């Protein structure tokens, strides 16, 4: 297994930059995710690593070996495509054997590996099925088995879960993570789905407009977003513009933010689940009196829109049980947020 290092990588399509100044250091055995909205350049970077396109600048290395100018077939990189790209005129077995035969492995090894990986992805007995006879989930498993059979140094996954229905996607997330841990293979996963990124990754990189904005663990990215884009892209947040005077910060409405000092930050992000909603005044710092304008029931939680001191707050409360306090539209309530849950952002 190998570590993947990208140094100052840049790729342009005509004059349009697809990705700029990309520096990544993906550790051996890591499950690393590229997360970002459509068109942010994440798939371009994946294709650069696979070797389907060449960078205009920078270098890419795998396991310490410079692979920047190597063709895809020489890179020892496996890839699972968004639409799986299974060869439609071959059976399941023929698809998995394809790469092994190209590498001229022995008949015995081809047979063993094919059966091993078919078994690993839970498709024993599917050997002679045609691709068109498989469901989306089964096709995806074949695509995984085909790539894994070559035991590449790194496995690239280009939004492989996006074509599955919600329930299957959930179960495949867990299976895929378990499989990756079992094999210990360095895996790079591309997705625009923040839930996938947060639940599956050891670390992730968030991209926007061709640039890597932040790299970190899911917790770091969620709790300490680097800017307003990430704060809003990953999960729900309350984003307020703030200003500072004499090392003290103030809300948009002019009220001071108690407990925060310094200067230079322009925004503050507070996650909705970090705001405490109460019927009674506690006199805690940064407490607001407000009124509930909206309420949305989400099953395990309820989302409220509360207006307080001319500020609109989104608040999420877990629906713990039937003894929960009842909050309804029009009620007077109190909001409180701790300074430790307030994330200062530059822009």
């Amino acid at each position: 297994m190998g570590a993947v290092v990208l140094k100052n990588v840049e790729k342009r399509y005509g004059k349009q930059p697809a990705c700029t100044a990309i520096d990544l250091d993906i550790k051996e055995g890591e499950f690393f995710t590229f997360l970002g909205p459509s068109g942010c350049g994440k798939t371009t970077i994946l294709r650069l690593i696979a070797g389907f396109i060449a960078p205009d600048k920078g270098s890419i290395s795998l396991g310490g070996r410079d692979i920047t100018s190597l063709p895809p077939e020489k890179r020892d990189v496996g890839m699972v495509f968004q639409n799986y790209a299974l060869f439609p005129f071959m059976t399941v077995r023929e698809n998995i054997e394809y790469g092994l035969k190209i590498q001229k492995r022995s008949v015995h090894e081809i047979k063993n590996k094919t059966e091993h990986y078919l078994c690993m992805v839970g498709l024993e007995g599917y050997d002679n099925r045609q691709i068109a006879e498989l469901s989306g989930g089964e096709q995806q498993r074949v695509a995984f088995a085909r790539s894994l059979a070559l035991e590449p140094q790194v496995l690239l996954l280009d939004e492989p879960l996006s074509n599955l229905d919600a329930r299957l996607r959930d179960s495949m997330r867990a299976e895929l993570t378990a499989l990756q841990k079992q094999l210990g293979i360095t895996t790079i996963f591309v997705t625009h789905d923040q839930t996938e990124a947060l639940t599956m990754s050891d670390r992730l990189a968030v991209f926007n407009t061709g640039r890597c904005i932040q790299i970190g663990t899911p917790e770091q990215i969620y709790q300490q977003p680097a800017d307003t884009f990430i704060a809003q892209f990953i999960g729900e947040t309350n984003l307020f513009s703030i200003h500072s005077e004499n090392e003290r910060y103030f809300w948009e409405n002019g009220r001071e933010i108690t407990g925060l000092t310094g200067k230079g930050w322009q925004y503050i992000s507070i996650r909705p689940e970090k705001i405490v909603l109460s019927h009674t005044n506690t006199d805690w710092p940064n407490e607001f009196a407000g009124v509930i304008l909206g309420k949305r029931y989400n099953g395990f939680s309820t989302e409220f829109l509360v207006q307080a001191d001319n500020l609109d707050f989104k608040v999420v409360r877990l629906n713990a049980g039937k003894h929960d306090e009842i909050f309804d539209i029009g009620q007077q309530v109190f909001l409180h947020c701790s300074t430790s849950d307030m994330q200062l952002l530059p822009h």
Partner: protein
Amino acid sequence: MNISIKNSILFYGGVTFLLLFLFGYILFPALKTVETSILPDGVVSFIHYKNLFTVDVFRAPLINSILLGILSVVVCGFVGMLLAFLLHFFDFPFRNVLDKMLLLPMVMPGIIIVFAFVQLYGESGMVTKAIQFMWGLEHPPFRLSGLPGILFVHAYTQYVYFYLTVSIAIKHIDLSVIESARSLGASRSKVFFSIILPFLKPAIIAASAMTFISGAGSFTAPSIIGGSYKVLTTQILLSKANNYMDIAATQVSVLTCISLIFFAIFRIYETKKQFISSVKGVPFQPVKLTNPILRCLLLTGALCIISTLILPIFTIILVSFVPSSSWMIHYFPGEFTLQNYAEIFSSSRKMQPFVNSIIMAFAAAAFSLLIAIPSSALIVKGQHRVKWLIEFLVMLPWAIPASAIAINSINAFNEPSIFSFNTVLVGTSVLLPLGYLVRSLPIMVKTINVSFQNMNDMYLEASKSLGATSLQTYRNIALPILLPGIIAGFLLVFIRSIGEYTVSVFLYNASNKPMSIAMMNGVFEYNIGLAMAYGSLLILLTFFLSFVLSKGLAFAVK
């Protein structure tokens, strides 16, 4: 040598060869024809153009050709669209059989259809005489000649353009769009005129343009049953036969210009094709008729159409078993024999046209593959700037009537040139298969284009990511995907070439006389049975290859 430099040399070498071929055998001959038309005596003169537009005897065929084109559009449009609407809007017994049968004229050589129509609906035709005798008429009730006769043949052979394009467009209509219009209060007729017709408009215009080109450039029907209705294509042959090549060149140039205008319209609307909805749509479903009277009417209509479609083929085969001499004394076949077939298979002289046609059709199909595969690859997958030029050149013969392709070849290769390897090709056996090749190149490229479009680049990338080299990827992945399209293209060109008449009549010589000319000679020599035996062999071969083709396409779809 560096691999990328080697690849670049190979690529640019290939592109240069391709451009040279396309220029040398498509554009250069067309330009030579223009040159011949404006340099009648080595001096620039537009006298022939002036004559063509001002002198009645020259102008009449031009007007007749345009009129024939327009009326062909009207007649074929009516027949083709009516059939498309009936078959795709209503569900009735034999609908699927009829849908397949309606494509029959596509694979039938034009000359066979014309001969079959003469045998059925001509002055002494079996249907004509049957009606005359049944009703006790003194004269035949109709004559298959002149403009109505040609239009009757065109209605049978060319409605397919409308039927096919409109059918495809109907299949792409999203049912939910119609349902949403109905839910917004639109009546059935309002939905038809405000939703369905605008949806079909690009297909209808594209089919009209193709039918016009085909109708105005038609040669077989006007030359055999046109009688006094002279059109440009028949006049071109007359000019050529009398060695007025400058007049023939002028007529060809004008006819080609008219076709090019309509071809441009076709290309514009062909690219529009249909409005594809951005989300997954619900396919349009025909309505199941519950009214027994309507069902019965449609069933009767379907059976009548199937009979009409099969009748010409049945007639050719039937007449092929009738001794030629019996037609002198009978209107209807009374005795049957295998003598006509025995004559073909026992006489090498009579077998020769059959063999010639197979060899030339095979050569044309094989060589057009060599040109079409790289052309399609560049058109569909290429990013290079010459891509549009290659597409323009390979599609150009679609806009050039067959008679024009023949005259262009004669003008270009009646003197040594770089493209004829410094020799005169006119009079040699090379020119006719070359004509077949040029004529069929667009259909070959179109067919192979579909294969390249179906070849998702992801398959190639997946193969490379699994360690395969470019060569292994092309052999193991690209070829199996492309092969059905390649086989389909090969067979289509083979089928179109083996019974080809128009290019043949201009370019054949004594040593490569094809089957279509042998059939024509047989009819002129009153050896009708022999001519029809050639026709039956042609039908047999065409049907066999069409069967192989459909199997190949079914495999491709799978």
